[in-house]
């Protein structure tokens, strides 16, 4: 149902620009652009994951920061035990290898999403929004009161996780690794969205009763989508903690869930690349406006208001309309 990936030229063009970006940034004298792009990529993964349940599945989760933060804390906690050379709960050794922390993140965030999803999906509508928020807030207060892991001050990760053969302290290397991960992620997401599973998910959003009449177990489909989405957000959290070299309760706060939602709506709900565009737009807006004026939130507010009131479908739709094509 999503045709955006079927424009191979456009996609190839974007990819070439993304690959060339660090060189362009250095040439233009703005090397920090690479880091900004890394941040946008990470948020893009998180927002696209959220979009799977929110846009395709019609489940408005206001608690995705829970998985994002869990991803970050998996990296942080394992790193702390690695440096202190002791065991987590006396069982699990710490590590600083991305090839270990990444699967660990997916496991932990997937399990958390299964648990939270299984309970939350018993409700719907506004109640679903609020119960997902409730679970995320509980996690927030848990991390704030975890003194061993820094509490409110957060966990400093002095060295980012390592990948064999690569210098993960180099910002360009990090960017390319993350770009590769993002590419794989979006490819998988594209396969999921266009699979039978994806079609059922959209069908459930449009008419749950009809799908149930067809004999499809709605609850299980939704839960599966929620778990995949949670794992995606966890992945983004893992990358963010490695990028910031820091994990803090700030990653789990409800405003982070709100920001992810804003990115999705800003870019375009229910489109494959909309959330990535939204994430990029949001991070760039934040950075540019903040360097422009200390009252940058005023500008951001008005821009968001404009987008939601007048674009009908976010930036993606705006582009499509300017290009004279239907979204």
């Amino acid at each position, binding site marked *: 149902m999503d045709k955006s990936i079927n424009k191979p030229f456009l996609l190839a063009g974007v990819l070439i620009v993304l690959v060339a970006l660090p060189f362009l940034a250095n040439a233009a004298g703005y090397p920090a652009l690479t880091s900004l792009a890394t941040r946008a990529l990470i948020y893009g993964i998180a927002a696209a994951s959220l979009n799977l349940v*929110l846009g395709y599945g019609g489940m*408005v989760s206001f608690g995705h920061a829970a998985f994002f933060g869990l991803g970050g804390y998996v990296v942080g906690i394992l790193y702390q035990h690695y440096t202190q050379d002791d065991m987590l709960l006396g069982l699990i050794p710490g590590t600083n290898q991305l090839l270990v922390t990444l699967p660990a993140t997916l496991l932990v965030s997937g399990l958390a999403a299964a648990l939270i999803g299984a*309970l939350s999906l*018993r*409700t*719907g509508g*506004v*109640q679903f*929004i*609020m*119960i997902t*928020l*409730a*679970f995320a*807030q*509980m996690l927030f*207060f*848990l991390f*704030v*009161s975890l*003194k061993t892991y820094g509490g409110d001050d957060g966990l400093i990760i002095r060295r980012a996780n390592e990948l064999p053969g690569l210098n993960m302290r180099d910002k360009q290397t990090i960017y390319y690794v993350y770009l590769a991960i993002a590419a794989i992620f979006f490819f998988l997401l594209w396969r999921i969205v266009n699979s039978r599973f994806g079609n059922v998910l959209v069908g459930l959003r449009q008419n749950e009763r009809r799908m149930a009449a067809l004999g499809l177990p709605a609850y299980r489909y939704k839960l599966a989508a929620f778990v995949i989405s949670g794992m995606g957000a966890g992945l983004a959290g893992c990358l963010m903690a490695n990028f910031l070299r820091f994990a803090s309760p700030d990653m789990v706060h*409800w*405003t982070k869930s*709100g920001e992810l*939602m*804003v990115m*999705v*709506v*800003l870019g375009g*709900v229910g489109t494959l690349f909309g959330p990535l565009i939204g994430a990029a737009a949001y991070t760039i807006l934040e950075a540019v406006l903040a360097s422009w004026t200390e*009252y940058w*939130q*005023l500008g*951001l*507010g*008005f*821009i*968001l*208001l404009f*987008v*939601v*009131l007048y674009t009908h479908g976010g930036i993606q739709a705006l582009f499509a309309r300017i290009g004279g094509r239907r979204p």
Partner: protein
Amino acid sequence: MSLFLEQLLNGLQFGVMLFLLAAGLTLIFGIMGVINLAHGSIYMIGAYAGAYVAAQTGSFFLGVPAALVAAALVGAAMEFLVVRRLYKRDHLDQVLATFALILIFNQVVTLLFGRQPLFVSMPSLLDGAVELLPGLTYPIYRLAIILVGLLVALGLYLLINRTRIGMLVRAGSTNREMVRALGVNVGMLYTIVFGLGALLAGLAGVMAGPILAVQVGMGEQILITTFVVVVIGGVGSIRGAFVASLLLGVVDTMLRAYLPSMLRHVMIGSDADALGAGISSMGIYLLMAVVLLIRPKGLFAPNS
């Protein structure tokens, strides 16, 4: 025993404040289907308007009407300029638009009043404490808040059950389409309800002035708690909001008051304190999760 009663009163007072905010939010939610994140901003505007006028005139009681007028006006303007365009949109667009409004309101208030918290002096008429029972003294101002809150609840009850507007509100929260189909001037009804909700939020804001710090961001702090109240009570139900507010106020206060000392019987002091504080912060969310798992639409959902 008097300590327990005092804590109960504290819970009641907190609950009543929550009710003033939740009543408006649940009506807007229930009747117009709008998730209004900026409801907390109206509370902040009420507090700022009240604090400003009280400081200029030297009278807290002149600050109260100023706060009510400012909150209702801003609320009505917000409905007219922004929220009106969102009725037919889905929840996501509403969340984004009202999130944008929070940013705008916070920054405008910063520009107008500066970054420093404002000072509201306690009206001398309500200063001090009274002895309710032997051994139980309680601040007059907090008793006044409880009284005002209960009066507002009574007023809302009469408004909704005894007047024509109330009839429409009741009908609207049960079946929105039907009211529209009956040829009622829905636009008018919506503006009135929105203005009323804003007015109550402004009242909560100005009453909070002498107790709390009047500062930017005070609305977001209480917004999420208010949403929890609305959802526990059942979206669109004033009765539900009332019961849930008091329940939440009392549960929250009691957890903070008694949980750490109860835990101290089973574990070491400092661990008990930290864990107790952690659990009592989570308390209201736990309560909401439990209520929703048993009654997915809340306690008093109008259309269940």
